[in-house]
């Protein structure tokens, strides 16, 4: 295999979740886009294959069908249980989503409070267990807690989706060490969910060993969502490549990159 001038052939292992191969390691959240046309353009820019949606009351005044737009884009739907504060509500919402969209995949969210939107760990675990038993492919939005991530995997979740920082905060990855610990122990894909503010955050997630990134607000609420969609896709790809390439170790002192031997003697003659 040779190198061409414009493209370096790189092989990567496929991104598999629950036995299904996804082309893109970036999953797009559809929340927050000002217009459906912008959402469609952003989907194309991210090359996402899987996009999240929420389940809400039918609005007779709503213009344009989200489901139609997403179908035209050729993406698969990943319904979420956003807005649920109890395991029971999340389980019922997941079942309603299965009824509505004909998918047994669910992004499981069980939120503890409105101010932080952080997961409620005990309720999350209960809901995950019940949904797995009911045949769902459960992708839980979880804290950056390695023990909780392991418990979620133990009850049969198909992936774990730790947060980098609170939903919509754009604060990036506040505890990269915990994300690395989750990656180290996980036997299922780790998808960084929430907190990405810009492309470098997505790259860092991948450099830490995450298998994918789920991103909504950083793209949807950017001044130019489509440009940011390109940037974050490139960030995910760059981080993935860098992870595989193996970074140099950090060191306190400098290490010259030019040879130390063969230096010219440029001392002037003694007068």
């Amino acid at each position, binding site marked *: 295999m040779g190198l061409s001038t414009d493209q370096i052939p790189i092989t990567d292992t496929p991104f598999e979740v629950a036995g299904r191969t996804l082309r893109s390691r970036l999953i797009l*959240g559809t*929340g927050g886009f000002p217009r459906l046309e912008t959402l469609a353009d952003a989907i194309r820019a991210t090359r996402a294959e899987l996009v999240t*949606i929420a389940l809400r009351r*039918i609005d007779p005044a709503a213009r344009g069908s989200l489901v139609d737009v997403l179908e035209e884009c050729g993406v698969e739907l990943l319904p979420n249980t956003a807005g649920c504060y109890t395991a029971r509500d999340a389980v019922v919402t997941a079942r*309603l*989503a299965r009824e*509505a969209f004909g998918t047994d995949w669910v992004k499981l969210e069980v939120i503890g409070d409105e101010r932080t939107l952080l997961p409620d760990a005990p309720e999350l675990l209960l809901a995950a267990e019940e949904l797995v038993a009911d045949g769902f492919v459960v992708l839980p939005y979880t804290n950056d807690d390695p023990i909780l991530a392991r418990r979620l995997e133990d009850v049969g979740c198909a992936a774990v989706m730790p947060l980098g920082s609170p939903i919509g905060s754009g604060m990036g990855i506040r505890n990269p060490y915990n994300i690395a610990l989750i990656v180290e122990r996980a036997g299922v894909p780790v998808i960084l969910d929430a907190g990405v503010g810009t492309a470098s955050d997505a790259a860092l997630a991948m450099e830490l060993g995450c298998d994918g990134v789920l991103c*909504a607000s950083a793209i949807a609420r950017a001044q130019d969502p489509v440009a940011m969609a390109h940037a974050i896709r490139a960030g995910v790809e760059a981080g993935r490549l860098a992870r595989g390439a193996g970074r140099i170790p950090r060191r306190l002192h400098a290490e010259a990159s030019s040879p130390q031997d063969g230096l010219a003697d440029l001392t002037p003659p003694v007068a």
Partner: protein
Amino acid sequence: MIILNGEPRERDGATIAELLVDLGVEDRARGVAVAVNGEIVPRAQWPRHHVDAGDRVEALTAMQGG
């Protein structure tokens, strides 16, 4: 009186399918799910499930969300 998506309506005895038409949704519309009093009513039952006075009906669909 029933409660449809949080709004009181004089539709006692209507079917789920009829309520969906009220909301401007075609019968058997894609991407729609319905719960009555917190329990899912499967699509196949929409034409024959009649609501009673006091029922809380939630008719849901896809919205943009992270």
